[in-house]
């Protein structure tokens, strides 16, 4: 068995070579260049990293980045789970339609979608005017230029990335298990929290990681729907590179973000491995 598996693994690597070369040329080498600039501009040393770590402003930007990504991930999970569940148990014809609607939103231009939210959410926007018209509020709610705006805009964009992996996992869960839970006297809530959610955990975990990591590096939506007080790291990098032409600082910030992301990914791999082993 072992001897048969070994050559197969070797030839697989050969087939993967083009992909590996492509990644090296268009991903690894640019990252190495960026890393080099971050320790050589304006002079050799770690001064860019020292500035980043030492300044309270940048600390706040780091905190914002993780906080916003965390909030977005949490809200996305809470919304995506029932949607994915509904999609999984719906008649196939219906689920195909809902699925198409979800995918359609993914294919629409990101900037256009963000602007659409701006128009809906602003103080003179549709939502505030409707709430005012039905008499629910006197003063318009502040829904843009703050955390609320960023969260709404980003959750909307991230939802498909959570629904897809979740749906895959939920579909594989044997409905008989839920029936068994009911027969054993579990309430609906117990069936959800003690049976369905634990079984769907791998889907939740992989979806959450994807959403969290994508949110960490997001630029357009936070920039347009958030205020400067919620500034995230991607915006800091854009300012440093585009406005101040400071590749050193921009590179350092980008590299720190990459490190954190890779670290998270490693933790997740460990966590999933252990789950599967157990």
């Amino acid at each position: 068995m072992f001897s048969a598996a070994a050559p197969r693994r070797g030839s697989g690597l050969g087939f993967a070579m083009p992909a590996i070369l492509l990644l090296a040329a268009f991903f690894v080498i640019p990252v190495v260049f960026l890393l080099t600039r971050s320790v050589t501009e304006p002079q050799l040393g770690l001064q860019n990293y020292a500035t980043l770590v030492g300044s309270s402003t940048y600390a706040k930007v780091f905190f914002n980045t993780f906080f916003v990504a965390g909030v977005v991930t949490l809200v996305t999970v809470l919304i995506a789970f029932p949607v994915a569940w509904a999609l999984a148990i719906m008649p196939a014809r219906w689920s195909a339609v809902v699925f198409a609607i979800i995918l359609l939103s993914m294919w629409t231009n990101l900037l256009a979608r963000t602007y659409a939210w701006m128009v809906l959410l602003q103080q003179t926007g549709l939502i505030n005017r409707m709430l005012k018209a039905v008499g629910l509020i006197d003063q318009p709610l502040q829904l843009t230029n703050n955390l609320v705006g960023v969260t709404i805009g980003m959750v909307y964009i991230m939802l498909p990335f959570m629904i897809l992996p979740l749906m895959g996992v939920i579909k594989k869960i044997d409905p008989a298990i839920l029936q068994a839970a009911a027969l054993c006297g579990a309430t609906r809530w117990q069936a959800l929290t003690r049976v369905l959610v634990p079984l769907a955990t791998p889907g939740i975990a992989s979806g959450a990681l994807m959403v969290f990591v994508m949110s960490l590096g997001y630029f357009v939506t936070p920039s347009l729907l958030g205020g400067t007080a919620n500034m995230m790291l991607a915006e800091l990098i854009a300012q440093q590179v585009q406005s101040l032409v400071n590749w050193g600082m921009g590179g350092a910030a980008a590299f720190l973000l990459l490190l954190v992301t890779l670290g998270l990914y490693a933790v997740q791999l460990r966590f999933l491995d252990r789950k599967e082993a157990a």
Partner: protein
Amino acid sequence: MKKTMIALAFASALTSAAHAQDMVFTSWGGTTQDAQAAHWAAPFTEKGGPAVVQDGPTDYGKIKAMVEAGAVTWDVVDVEYDWALQAGKAGLLEPLDFTVIDKAKLDPRFVSDFAVGSFYYSFVLGWNPANFSDAKPATLADLFDTAKFPGTRTFYKWSAPGVIEAALLADGVAPEALYPLDLDRAFKKLDTIKADIIWWEGGAQSQQLLASGEAPIGFFWNGRLSALQADGMDVGISWDQNITAADALVVPKGAKNKEAAMKFIAEATSAEGQAAFAAATGYAPVNLGSADLMDPAIRATLPDAQTAVQVNADMAYWAEHRDEIGNRWYAWQAQ
């Protein structure tokens, strides 16, 4: 069949020859670049110059990366004037060829070794009359007075000449005493309205904020307010202490079509090119001969008709302190 083949080969040879000579002009997009394409690039090509490919938006990080990598694909770039001065000193730009570009006719405020003005504009106080039916805001002090004129106000998001000057003028600093900028005082003044500020990142967004009433008052590029008026919207403009800043045309170091680039700049800064561009955009010409070519009614709406109440942002000062101010500006915004 054979004939078509030859014709096709010939045609493709022709187009590839033309491509080899094409030059690239990069600007900020939107209606401004449309006007630059129509009133500078089109006549330039018509008079025998190469075809001009439009690219964008302008990105300073990209310019620096291109120059350092020795792979410059932009021949002429529209940049902010203070950045041009700084970049010229840093060795990122080609010196301009003033045997091709006639600098005698240009407004001396906007001529330097590495850059000439592209156009100049004013930051002006603008407001939506629907939101201010009684008292009308008139001065920069009103712009910072949330008691008298409550509501969200909108300002330019990026670190650039304009907003800091406005804060100091509103706080009572005399125009001739603006420089060196008292940043502590400026940020203290800005702190008083910080909670009421929405930042605009580009011209289109500033128009949207004002027109929708989301930010009924703010500090705008004058051309964007002219465009709203041209669309039939009622917009209040106060030119009192309008603050001028300029864009510049530059050639990145190592540009592939240097000669054509110089000729393009000559065409763009000609009296005709500047006059046509100004009429289309509401920004002021940098060529002193343009005024005579323009409809006086249009001229009256441009910043160069408002010189009596004008404050000039000091581009040399900004070029010198751009990074220092920028770092502080962004840190203050994020707080």
